[in-house]
């Protein structure tokens, strides 16, 4: 197991390095540069700026300088902000996005599987249709529409709910819901189908025939088996939610990390592009690693149940 972990860790580092290198090459091969604004900036000032950020050096040299700094944990200065470094921006933006992400995750986990389980128990009856309509809306309505709808119909009518902005708990309520909808719906659908499968299993019949109450059968036997597929999607869901959503953050005016992913590219803010990409890649790789480790524990259990059957 130790060997497996070490191997996985080494693979992760190689993956991260590949992400860094590919991003670096792609970023420098698209047209445009951070200082090409519509202003009358003379050539020399432009060159001063290039020099200040080391862009006058050959690309390979820039690449190795960047890698060197990265090893020291220094992501460099943003080329657009003269106030914050890339490290500052991530340190400030990540907690904001992560807070929304955690809240959205809690909402999704609270309601998604429950909705799915509920639907499965009342298969092809009214509750099933209602839950699945909610899930389909959640999956198919894009978040920018959901955000706008929430602002228009909820925030505008509920006095204490702000329309957008940041600062207090009340600012986080609507965006958390808007972000939660998609993962919640996904979980609900996954839960419904796996629950239906589990409910048809022999051991549920056995449990029922033993005279256990319906509630106990569902809670102790059905739900805890059916929830496994939901857990397997948590790795990507968590990393996506944690780093924030560009759309939600833009619509609700939230100072999170999600904004930087798109804005950095529009501005050709090279250091910020690299910083956010590396950060996201690192989180994603870590999460996938954790899920894989979790599988190692789950694996024998699956064998066990198979044997038990």
């Amino acid at each position: 197991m130790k060997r497996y972990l070490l191997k996985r860790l080494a693979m992760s580092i190689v993956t991260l390095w590949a992400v860094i290198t590919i991003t670096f090459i792609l970023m420098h091969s698209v047209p445009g540069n951070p200082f090409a604004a519509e202003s009358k900036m003379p050539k020399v000032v432009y060159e001063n700026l290039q020099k200040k950020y080391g862009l006058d050096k050959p690309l390979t040299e820039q690449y190795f300088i960047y890698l060197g700094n990265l090893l020291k944990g220094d992501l460099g200065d943003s080329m657009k902000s003269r106030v914050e470094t890339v490290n500052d921006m991530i340190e400030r933006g990540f907690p904001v996005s992560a807070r929304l992400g955690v809240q959205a995750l809690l909402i999704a986990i609270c309601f998604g599987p429950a909705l799915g389980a509920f639907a499965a128990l009342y298969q092809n009856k009214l509750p099933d249709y209602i839950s699945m309509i909610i899930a389909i809306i959640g999956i198919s309505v894009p978040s920018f529409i959901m955000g706008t709808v929430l602002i228009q119909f909820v925030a505008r009518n509920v006095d204490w709910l702000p329309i957008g902005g940041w600062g207090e708990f009340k600012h986080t309520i609507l965006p958390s819901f808007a972000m939660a909808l998609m993962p919640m719906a996904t979980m609900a659908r996954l839960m419904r189908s796996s629950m239906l499968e589990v409910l048809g299993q022999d051991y549920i019949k056995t449990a029922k025939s033993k005279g256990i109450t319906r509630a106990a059968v569902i809670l102790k036997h059905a739900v805890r088996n059916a929830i496994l597929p939901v857990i397997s999607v948590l790795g990507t869901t968590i990393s996506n939610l944690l780093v924030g959503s560009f759309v939600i953050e833009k619509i609700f005016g939230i100072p999170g990390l999600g904004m930087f992913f798109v804005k950095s590219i529009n501005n050709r803010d090279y250091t910020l592009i690299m910083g956010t990409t590396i950060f996201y890649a690192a989180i994603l790789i870590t999460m996938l690693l954790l899920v894989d480790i979790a599988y190692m524990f789950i694996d024998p259990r699956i064998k066990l149940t198979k044997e038990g059957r």
Partner: protein
Amino acid sequence: MSKKFLTLMSLLLVMAIVVTGCSSPAKEPAPSETPSTEAPAETPSTGEKKILRTNNSSEPGSLDPALAQGTHESWILSNTFEGLMTYDQEGKVVPGIAESYELSEDNLTYTFKLRDAKWSNGDPVTAHDFEFSWKRALDPELAADYAFQLYYIKGAEAYNTGEGSVDDVMVKALDDKTLEVTLEAPTGYFLELTAFYTYYPVSKNVVEANPDWAKTPETHISNGPFKLVTWEHNAYIELEKNPNYYAADQIKLDGIHFDIIEDENTAWQKYEGGEYDILATLPQAVAAQMSAENNPELVIGNQVGVYYYNLNSEIKPFNNAKVRNALSMAIDRTVIVEKITQGGQMAAEGAVPYGLTDETGGEYRDKVGNLIVEDPAKAKQLFEEGLAEEGMTVEDFNKAGFVLLFNTLEAHKKIAQAVQEMWRTNLGINIGIENVEFQVKLDREKAGDYHISRGGWTGDYMDPMTILDLWLTGGAFNDARYSNAEYDKLILEAKGTADQNIRFNNMREAEKILMKDMPIIPVYFYTQPYAVKPNVEGIYKLPIYYPTITYANIK
């Protein structure tokens, strides 16, 4: 392994209970922090203080005047700093930190006498601060984007470009209250420039002691009507009245709260929901609707800006003035401003927008007149003549697959489609339209890799020169690659003289030449529609600035 399995299962069980338990009581989800977040009881106290609330649509890149680049910085800076000169409500340049000034016989040397003004930390504002600030903005090490705004000062360009020494920059504090500036050439609008943000002073003591002074509110020392008290990055900025400001009695607000919300629609929702007193950028559809309803909250602000199309004169047949003029004549600008932009924009009458004054103090455009001709029939004739001169036919033109390039934005697309249709019906030509990302458009324009491209320019100072010097041969933003010796001569002569008659005569002549050659097709003059709540007074707009909120009052 089975023990681990059991722990995992029990964990899952706990989770399952949480899951099912969660669904029945409809609890408020996830109060991730203690109730203290709900607590801050700010509501009762705000009734006392007059805080103007609005939105600054983008995070400032810096609140150091030397490093500022655009409106998202200058709107905050113009409320926290003041230059030697400033503007009054009518847009006239009046003394600010300077009390008076003298100009030498040769129109080259200004001597400013400073009033008794103070920094927000109580220190006096001295001429040494100005000398320090301007030289600092020119320091190549600082790499300030807007340093070129100081090139009017003798020796400034050489120092900024690394060819001269800081000691040769001709700005000098003669004593604490006297500043002497010598210019490279007589500049008719130099006083206006001293009201521009690159010319704002910073405190020599503060900046020398702490190079990072502009990054935190505690060390951000300014000399204007307000001072910075909070800067939550990407969230909001709060200003508080500066009691040390020399004209503090004229300031009625206790503070200004700027949200930083990029989404125009969200900001509009907040304005409509009563969370803002003024909103300076409106979604285009909102402005159009307010305008149609004659909503009294809407103000159509003047703006010195022109929206135009570049014609790449290095590509046949756009090298032909007849072809270029025909393309211009075939456009119905009234339809564009009335049916598409709908924000009170004006059909272009030349390259220089309305709102600038001439040598007599009157409107600049009055003496030039409307230089734009719209005549579809004549356009077609001229177009065919021009093509024939280049040995082309309309079929050749259509086969060449010319494309109109613009940066991705719904508003640009609508105008491009309308123009495409006007050219098709009036000239019988097919021009494709292509949208690319803004940075890509700039790159392609610089490389000359385009046929027709959308351009736009807003003035940096209140003089027609802010627009007209764009098309000097080889100019950095002469994307049309226009070159006319006579035009260059007129513009350069106007730039080098303080004689207002010569300056304005030359600029008028130059604009006429430009519109005869038509290297760019002006489409419309910009406006800035903004919205103000009825209980707010004292907000007005000067053409090159965002609405002035400094002297606002909330009733």
